[in-house]
């Protein structure tokens, strides 16, 4: 099946949790790359690209996995693209 890349913005529950700890706790989705976006007062957002099947339901399984992750407070999908395209 064709692959797509979903770019998500993740906000941690605890500002002290390191981005790689959060990313390591996400299973079942292939992380392609990520960037830390510094926000304020020590809080960083994570901008991460995950590879998904170009399937019915779109980004829903990923969104569900992130929203139910205990280390994650909020998330939003900021872009979806063909896997061969550089976001």
């Amino acid at each position, binding site marked *: 099946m064709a692959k797509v890349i979903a770019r998500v913005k993740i906000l941690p529950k605890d500002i002290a949790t390191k981005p790689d700890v959060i990313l390591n706790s996400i299973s079942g989705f292939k992380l392609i790359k990520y960037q830390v976006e*510094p*926000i304020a*007062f020590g809080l960083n957002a994570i901008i991460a690209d995950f590879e998904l099947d170009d399937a019915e339901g779109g980004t829903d399984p990923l969104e569900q996995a992130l929203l139910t992750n205990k280390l994650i407070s909020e998330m939003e999908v900021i872009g979806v693209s063909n896997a061969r395209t550089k976001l």
Partner: protein
Amino acid sequence: MITGASQADAAILVVSAKEGETETALSEGGQAREHAFLLKTLGVNQLIVLINKMDATQPPYSQKRFDEVKNMASDLLKLVGYKVDTLPIIPVSGWTGDNLSEKSTNITWYKGPTLLEALDNLQVPPKPTDKPLRIPIQDVYSITGVGTVPVGRVVTGVMKVGETIIVMPPALKGEVKSIETHHTGVEKAEPGDNIGFNVRGIAKQDVKRGMVLGHPDNPPTVSKEFIAQIFVVFHPTAIAAGYTPVLHAHTAQIATSISEIISKIDPRTGQVVEDHPKTIKTGDAALVRLKPPLTPLCIETYKEFPELGRFALRDSGRTVAAGIVKEITQKA
């Protein structure tokens, strides 16, 4: 595509030039056709049209086929309500890269811009700095040594350190003690800035994602009921009054109910095609009355705040419809 479209200033509509694919995409129920109507409904007026797969026409890079597809796409876009003469319509191949970043050597008959040039020609909308302040809350933290820190992106207006702000719907007032972006203190925040800010007078547990912050003299509108113009992108059967999808607007996600289907309309002109239809289906545009049944919602009319007046309706992981707020009929 659709949640993104509800924030977009511009869009690229991709139509395949491959025999058969064009016809499917542009005909009744076709994806390009629906996306075009959707973009029009959401007020996305800057459009670039790509006629893709030019490498796969018969013969490859056929000007005749391009003209055919261009005419079909133009007819559709005219029907949707776009001023076609002003839109770049570009023959490309995503496969071979023709006319994407560099002028194609295979498509010598085409004299217009490449995709990259067309992107550079898009107009950046002016920053809505002189509008009333609106910051949809993304999240809230309680940070040791700092205090309550809401996080969000400024959509309109300017927020300055020292000002009194109000968070809606709960109507809580607080004072902005400091603002940071990229971990750097700033005196004011403007549209587009991703910020965290420390407010005194508001506790973390009282502020949630989906609430909107503004100034007390012009607070964000809280609505219990509003009328919207929607375009149905996908529904397996038909939508009747009483349907309860999830509404996504700015950072809010809230259960909502279509309490009345007021009329089926022509998406180009807004003219009524049918009064109070029993149902609406995929491809239909309609005026509907929406009611968040549990909690009121911060939402604005599209006319006043285009950035906050667009929304998507989702159900079981799919976007069912997207639309704009025409009128707030019941304020909270």
